[in-house]
Each structure stands twice: as structure tokens, then as C-alpha cells.
């Protein structure tokens, strides 16, 4: 399954300037992720894993070091070029679902296509297909507050998939969901990874969620302390 490297990070540092001085958050991160991998990112709060995901998601820039996405160096790109990458190379799934409350499910799923410049008819068609793929084909005109949390997260996944990205970045996607629903969501992620070959990076602190991944990267104090197979021991530390 694993192919060429899709994400490559070299000597990455990130620090925030505060009134009290510079606060280092990431210290010398080196990581390569191959196309088609399913990686769980774990670590305690404040370990820097969220900052790392923001950088991978082209929402934030490193202080130092380089980041290659699909072989392209990202930190030299303009804000507009970064927006374009977020639009077609990446899909985001958040803990809080982050759907637009006033838009129906179809419009929510179609949102990335709007910014990708896709025609209206095509947008509806592809949004419909993606909703069907996550099992919500009959809820196209519903509003987010009319469906359950698990269903909302499935809509968010459909939105992340609609522009056919090769990578999905999921930040605690099951954090707000009960166990049974979490299992459903993880099944969808697993299927996307195994059947469609989509690379998945998943931030979690639950060991049974991390267990769905093939590879585990563990952050502590801004450094990677573990990078390898998902073992019961390492997953349990999450």
C-alpha cells in the first residue's frame, strides 16, 4: 500500500513569541509519511501535536525547517497558494465537526468545490455522491442541527473528501462522539484508507482509536518520542 513520500518534514522548529519571550512548541521534527499510510498522532496536551497538524494542514507556518507536500516545498508559498493546497490536496475533519449551521448538508459538502471553482451542477452532483458514500444520501437538504453528532461528523468527512484530496487530516474526530458512533466513524476512515488509498493523519488521545491506525507517532514536549507500529503499550500511553 505504501508508496512515495507524500509528506516530508525536515528539521522543523516552531516557536510562539509571547510577552514573556519565545516559547518553543516544536523542536527539530523530522518525519516522512508515505502515500497511503494511516498514521495516528498522539501525545499529552501541550505536546505540540496540534501545532504540528496545523503546519501539515498549511494553516500555520514553521519558524524554521522545511515541509514538502506532494514533493512541493510549502513554506515558500503565498497565502493564496496555501489556500489552494488546503482546497485540493488536503481534507480536514475537526473534533467539533465545523459545519456551517445555516447551510444544508449538500451545500456544506460542496463548500470546498465553491472555492475550487467547480460549476453549480457538478458541485451538487459530487456533493450528493459524497453524502451517499457516508450513508447520508437522503439528507441532502437537511440542516446540520437536524441530525446527530455522528451524522454531522460523517458530513464533515464527506466535505473533506469532496475535492478528492490524497490526504485527510483529522483532529480528534471522535472526541465529541460516543463509543459506538466513534467506531462507525473509524470504520469509514479505515475504508477510505484501505479501499481508496487515502493517506490519513489522525490526532487522538484514545488508545482504542489510535489502534485503527497502522503507524503511531507520539509527541512529548515538542519532540517525537515514538514512531513505529501501533503496539498496545504505546497506544495505551496516548
Amino acid at each position, binding site marked *: 500500500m505504501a508508496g512515495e513520500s507524500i509528506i516530508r518534514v525536515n528539521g522543523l522548529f516552531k516557536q510562539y513569541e509571547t510577552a514573556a519571550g519565545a516559547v518553543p512548541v516544536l523542536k527539530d521534527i523530522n518525519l516522512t509519511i508515505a502515500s497511503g499510510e494511516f498514521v495516528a498522532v498522539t501525545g499529552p496536551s501541550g505536546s505540540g501535536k496540534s501545532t504540528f497538524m*496545523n503546519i501539515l*494542514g498549511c*494553516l500555520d507556518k514553521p519558524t524554521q525547517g522545511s515541509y514538502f507536500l506532494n514533493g512541493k516545498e510549502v513554506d515558500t508559498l503565498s497565502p493564496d497558494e496555501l489556500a489552494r493546497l*488546503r482546497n485540493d490536496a488536503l481534507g*480536514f475533519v475537526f473534533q467539533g465537526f*465545523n459545519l456551517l449551521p445555516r447551510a444544508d448538508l449538500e451545500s456544506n459538502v460542496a463548500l470546498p468545490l*465553491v472555492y475550487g471553482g467547480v460549476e453549480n451542477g457538478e458541485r451538487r452532483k459530487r456533493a450528493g455522491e459524497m453524502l451517499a458514500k457516508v450513508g447520508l444520501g437522503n439528507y441532502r437538504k437537511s440542516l446540520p442541527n437536524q441530525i446527530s453528532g455522528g451524522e454531522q461528523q460523517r458530513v464533515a468527512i464527506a466535505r473533506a473528501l469532496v475535492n478528492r484530496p490524497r490526504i485527510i487530516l483529522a483532529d480528534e474526530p471522535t472526541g465529541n462522539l460516543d463509543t459506538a458512533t466513534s467506531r462507525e466513524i473509524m470504520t469509514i476512515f479505515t475504508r477510505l484508507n484501505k479501499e481508496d488509498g487515502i493517506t490519513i493523519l489522525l490526532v487522538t488521545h484514545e488508545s482504542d482509536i489510535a489502534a485503527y491506525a497502522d503507524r503511531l507517532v507520539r509527541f512529548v514536549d515538542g519532540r517525537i518520542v515514538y514512531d513505529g507500529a501501533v503496539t498496545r503499550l504505546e497506544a495505551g500511553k496516548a
Partner: protein
Amino acid sequence: MIGPMLTEAWSAMAANRMRSFLTMLGMVIGVGAVILMLAIGQGAQYEVDQSIASMGSNLFIVLSGSTTSGGARMGGGAAPTLTLADAQAISELPSIAAVAPIAPGTAQVIYEQNNWSTRVDGTTPSYLEVRAWQLAAGYMFADSDVRSATRVTVLGQTVVKNLFGDENPVGKTIRIEKSPYLVTGVLAAKGQSLDGRDQDDTIIIPVTTAQRKLFGSQFQGSVRFMMVEASTAQAMPAAEQAINQLLRQRHHIQESADDDFTVRNLTAVANAASATARIMSLMLGAIASISLVVGGIGIMNIMLVSVTERTREIGIRMAVGARRRDILLQFLLEAVIISIAGCLAGVLLGVGGAVLINGIAETTVVITLSSIVLAFVVAAGVGIFFGFYPANKAAHLNPIEALRYQ
């Protein structure tokens, strides 16, 4: 891109109906006020222009010079320096349209048991053209009446009302200072002059009749003043010069000597009055524009609130690939929609109010297309101007912080 943005703008406004309505109301009142005030101002200007036009257009008044009698200077018009022959000569100048020599006076006029004291102008038939005056009935006396000094008269409306009531005066005979005069015509109503005099309280008779029979002048053939109409407004300076030259020549005035006549340009007075009305109109518009600016600030205020409320939404949009200019455009579009919708309603309000005032107060209000277009352009401009700051603020949010915003 614009299509979904319009939908989004609409749903954002629909989600906060009351707020959108109140924001829009600021623009509605602003635009309505501008249109209404411009309509009232232009109406006032129209009325001033009308009363200026009633005086006659492109007019000069040529006054005869003053005279000194026993050490007392008698003022302009007292010396018998202007003659009917002068009037004739001036009327032959190329830049002149018409000349009416005038021998004015006041007389008691009597018809049956009614009598009335009124202004009597001895003049020629060209008086009607110079004063831009129509006849309401009958006909004007002719040049032949002037030549033979006939006792005929044309009456102003106020005189008709006081002497005749509802009776038709044409063909009747009135007495002016004991002599009978045949009424040949009636002047149309002209209303008040700029200085508030009743222009209709007058009668006109042939100038020769006035000179020889009514007032009796020791200088036969002289007139106090004449009204001279230039052919066009552009020709007025040339006409003034030509009149001066001609009269100096005719009166044999030496190079060094002063004129024995005065040429006054009435257009200057008219222009001043017109300018006053225009300034008033502008001032009304300017005051109303302030409310438009206040409306614009209302839009900015609400857009800032909206940006803050929708911070998370902005973060989501940025995460899925919205560029800064997409966010900017979206919020700008919302501001412009609010201001243009408010403007449309404001135009209706302003026009409706103007029509209402026209009906109730019977003052003239003039709505011009240009004032509507102006209000519209200003409103769209206000929307863009005051919408830009909030929209730009939204576009420059940090996506990470925006996503985290609760």
C-alpha cells in the same frame, strides 16, 4: 463564485432578519431624505426660475439720465434724454430682439361705480414680447394706435378683478383720469414679482397717449426708461456695449463726458436669485447626505458584529480553501446588498414622500432622474466604503484562531 456568495449573503441576512432590517432602515431613511430634500430644493429653484422668467429674459433696463433742478439732483430717469426715436434705433441693433419704451405713471381708473388706483405704463406693442407676457383675452393695441395716440388700454388681471369682477372687460370703456379708454385686451396672470409686487396690478396704454394725453410731458417724445431684450443670453455683453455706443453717438456725448443714460442688466439680479435657490437646494442635499453617512456607519457597525459572530465560519471557509479575497468579497457583497436594497426602498420612500408633499402642501417638488441616480451611486459607494473595513478584517483573520473561536 458570485452565485453561492449571493445565496450565502441572503441566508446570512435572513438569519438575522430584524438586524438586517434595522441596518437597511438607516439606508432607507438616508436615501429617502436625500431624494426628498433634493426634490424640495429643486422645486424651490423651479419656482424661483419661474418668477424670474415672468420678468422676461435677457433684459436690460435703459434709464434716462438725471437732471438738476434748483440744486436738487432728481435721480435717474428724471432727465428727458431718452426718446422714442432712441428706442427705434436700439431695436434695429442686430443683438437686440425687442425694445419697449415705457412712460410710467399712476392713475385712478373707473368703470361704472368701481374705481381703482393702479400703475399705468405707456408703451408699445413690443412690451408683450419683452415682458414675455401673454394675453388672456382680446388683442394688444397696434403700432397704429401708438402713432395716432388712441385712447385704448389693455388691463392686468388685478385691475380686471377690481373693476369688472366676473364681467368680460374686452370692448368695454373705462375712464382714466376722466377720459374714456376702450379696453382691447386683458393680460394673462403673472403673479408676484421677485420683490413681492403684484405684477398684475397694472394697465398699459400706447406710449404716445400717455405722453400727450394722460400724463402730459413738457418734453414731447421722451420716455423715462425702456426695457430692452437681447436676442440671446450670450449676446448680452455685446448688446450692452452696442446700446452704450449707439446712445452716446445719438446723444452727441463727448469722449470725456459722462453718459446721460444708464444701462442696467437685470440678468445679474436674476442670476443671484437663481444662485441662492441653487445653494439652498445643495444645502438641503448636503444635510440629507449626513443621514446617508450615518446609515453607512450603521452598516459598518453591524458588519463588524457579523464578522465577530461568524469568526468560526470564516475559519472553516479558510480551512477548506477560501482565499482572502473570497472572504473579502463575501462580506463586501453583503454590505453592498444591504445598502442597495435599502437604497431601492429609500427611493420609493423619497419619491412617495415628494408626491405626498406635492399633493398636500401644494408646493412644487421636482424629482429628477439625476437625483435618484446620484442617491443610488452614493448608496452603493457607502456600502462599499463602510463595508470594506469589516470585510478586510474578516479576510485577514488567522484561520487557526478563527477555527478555535467559540
